[in-house]
């Protein structure tokens, strides 16, 4: 079969096109009500129209910025706190169960508390994003510090490195792969929480746009929002994978 010889990227695009074609055929045949599944053409129309009017650009930017802000705040806090916990084995023993419990708490479950403390506003959404996306990076940082090669610790002792120098020269570089993997997970959570927060608080963004479109039975607009959210998720995690490869190149070179 000649299909086998095509490069993977071409095959991937072919597969995606086949999926869209299937979507088109299903809607054209009227198998599913248009209220639930608009045709691909209607979705593209809604996208084009939304961008031309300027609504979608603003909503896209609002959600993306919310996600990035919360994620960055959470990452900085998580790496700082994680380093503090990570350099002390005693702190790890005392704090691990608490962290494990806090982490198993669904982040969305703190939304009611955040609402009653801060009120329905942008800062509530940001706070929930930070709270929810802090855990993966925090635990990954602690993990990265815990897995430092014992001989490197000996080296630090022989060189009489201060605690700060130990964090900067041995601890953090060693934890980079763990931290980046945690940050990737955190970013996914940040996007999810941004969407939930917008839905609940009515703050402008793709989350509230999707909710309003559904309430008004404007299915094409709803799907346009979903497509954009999928793109945001795809591009952000792809970007982080690239960054991860770049940041850990020295490590691959060293182990070769």
């Amino acid at each position, binding site marked *: 079969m000649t*299909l*086998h010889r095509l490069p*993977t*990227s071409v*095959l*991937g*695009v*072919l*597969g*995606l096109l*086949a*999926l869209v074609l299937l979507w088109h055929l299903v809607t054209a045949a009227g198998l599913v009500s248009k*209220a*639930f599944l608009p045709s691909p053409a209607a979705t593209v129309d809604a996208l084009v129209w939304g961008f031309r009017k300027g609504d979608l650009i603003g909503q896209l930017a609002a959600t993306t910025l919310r996600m990035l802000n919360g994620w960055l705040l959470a990452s900085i806090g998580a790496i700082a706190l994680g380093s503090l916990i990570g350099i002390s084995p005693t702190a790890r*023993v*005392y*704090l*691990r*169960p*608490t962290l*494990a*419990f*806090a982490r*198993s*708490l*669904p*982040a*969305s*479950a703190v*939304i*009611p*508390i955040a*609402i*009653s*403390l801060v009120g329905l506003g942008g800062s509530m959404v940001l706070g929930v994003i930070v709270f929810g996306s802090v855990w993966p990076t925090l635990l990954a940082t602690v993990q990265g510090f815990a897995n430092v090669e014992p001989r490197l610790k000996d080296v630090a002792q022989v060189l009489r490195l201060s605690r700060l120098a130990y964090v900067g020269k041995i601890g953090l570089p060693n934890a980079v792969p763990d931290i980046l993997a945690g940050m990737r997970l955190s970013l*996914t959570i940040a*996007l*999810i929480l941004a*969407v*939930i927060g917008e*839905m*609940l608080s009515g703050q402008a963004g*793709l*989350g509230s746009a*999707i*909710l309003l*479109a*559904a*309430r008004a*039975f404007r*299915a094409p607009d*709803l799907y346009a*929002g*979903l497509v954009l*959210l*999928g793109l*945001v*998720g*795809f591009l952000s*995690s792809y970007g982080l994978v690239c960054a991860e490869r770049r940041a850990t190149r020295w490590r691959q070179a060293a182990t070769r």
Partner: protein
Amino acid sequence: MRAWRGGIVPVVLLALAEIGFRLRAGPSDSLAPPSRAIAALLSILGDGSLLFGSAQTLGSLLAGLALGSLAGLGAGIVLASSELLRRLSFLSIEMLRPIPSVALLPLSLLIFGFGYGMEIAVIAFATFWPSLILSHSAVGQIEPRLMEVARLLRLSRWQTAAKIILPAAAPRLMTALRLAAGLALVVAVTAEIVSNPQGLGHDLMIAQETLRPERMFAVLFWVGLIGWGKNAALLRLERWLFAHRGDVDTSIAA
């Protein structure tokens, strides 16, 4: 490691919260001291409302998890057995997977209305992707010689799946199930908070809206307990089932 040391931090924090609350004058609509939250927890445990909510949440969770992870497992095995299909579908999967499952809540509500259906559908969507990816990689990591054995014995596709692939990939599949179960709880509670009027998430939202912070904290603690207990139970099951193989992957203790 002595277990009691892990308990000190939460106890101290709770005690500080209690003291802080006692020192501060006046009642609050948004916060409650731990003592009142504990009392509220006991009272809603006693009158059965908490167990009723938990049953609703866990019911949707189990149904959604079963649907999503079985479909993901099936798709993962199919993709692992056909190189062409895998290459055709990878881009579509990478485009569909990052759609936040909660963004589908309004759509699911439109299709199913309030009730179990909409929640189960979204949980199934959310758990499908990690199950697909993890079972695909689990099947991909099976010892190639085992597959050669299957070919040599001329096993049919079904027989290969049942007799070779599933047993060989079982430990990794169990890890995938544990991760998916964690995700399912998050999605279930979120669906109930955002739109579905049933279960623990809805209890949380009602407690907040009726200004009963002690009840809110009680339910929140309970949700955390469920998440933690479920994870611990699955981890233990995993170790018990596969300890003899010595290849349990506990590094992903989500």
